[in-house]
């Protein structure tokens, strides 16, 4: 692929890269810098792009490393306390009674897969992601979007695997509740 072709593709994916970076970093300026670094790195390494993966996948791979570097520089040693402080486990403990049973069990979402084809659903999902506390969102995105292994995330953020599991649990509980409230419990957009 010629350099002009690649450059055009880079620009086409810039908005997607910025969205990912912003959700991770919660800082528009930093996200813009990271995306810029990603595109520069991609241009410099264009000759090494084999074409085995899509350009988008390749750029996302570079972005992943740039985001991790940015997180590492932003907080030299992310304080576990800050990760704990922003997620109050008590909020989720209130969902269960003293015997450990659900107080307010999850509603039936029917067949939610159809929602995946709706653009409005993905917009609702993005809003729910934006509502996650910053560090929780960061960890969740590292796992689910960047597809980093649990061990990699723990190493980068200097947290234990138990911390990671708790953070991911909190993120999933928050997102589940947000989607239930803003999509699946709202007819006629809900599953019917």
């Amino acid at each position: 692929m010629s350099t002009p072709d690649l450059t055009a593709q880079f620009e086409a994916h810039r908005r997607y890269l910025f969205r990912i970076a912003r959700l991770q970093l919660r800082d528009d300026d930093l996200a813009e810098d990271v995306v810029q670094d990603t595109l520069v790195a991609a241009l410099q390494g264009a000759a090494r792009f084999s074409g085995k993966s899509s350009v988008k996948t390749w750029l996302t791979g570079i972005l992943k490393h740039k985001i991790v570097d940015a997180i590492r520089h932003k907080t030299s040693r992310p304080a576990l306390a800050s990760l704990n402080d922003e997620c109050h486990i008590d909020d989720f403990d209130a969902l269960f009674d003293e015997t450990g049973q659900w107080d307010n069990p999850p509603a039936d979402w029917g067949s939610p897969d159809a929602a995946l084809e709706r653009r409005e659903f993905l917009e609702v999902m993005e809003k729910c992601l934006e509502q996650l506390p910053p560090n929780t969102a960061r960890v969740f995105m590292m796992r689910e979007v960047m597809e980093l292994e649990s061990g990699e995330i723990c190493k980068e953020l200097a947290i234990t695997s138990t911390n990671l599991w708790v953070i991911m649990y909190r993120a999933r509980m928050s997102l589940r509740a947000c989607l239930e409230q803003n999509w699946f419990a709202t007819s006629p957009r809900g599953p019917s």
Partner: protein
Amino acid sequence: MISRKLDGPLPFGRALLLRLHLMWCLACQRFEKQAKFLHEVMRKYRK
């Protein structure tokens, strides 16, 4: 434990306990389905 399972294998004993629990707990069955759906949503989001 349902969420934990999505991030790595559970120890055998816990995996067994979870499987037994999911046989009868409708609410947890729903939560498991919804947690897996979230994973699918993020996969779509990546694309």
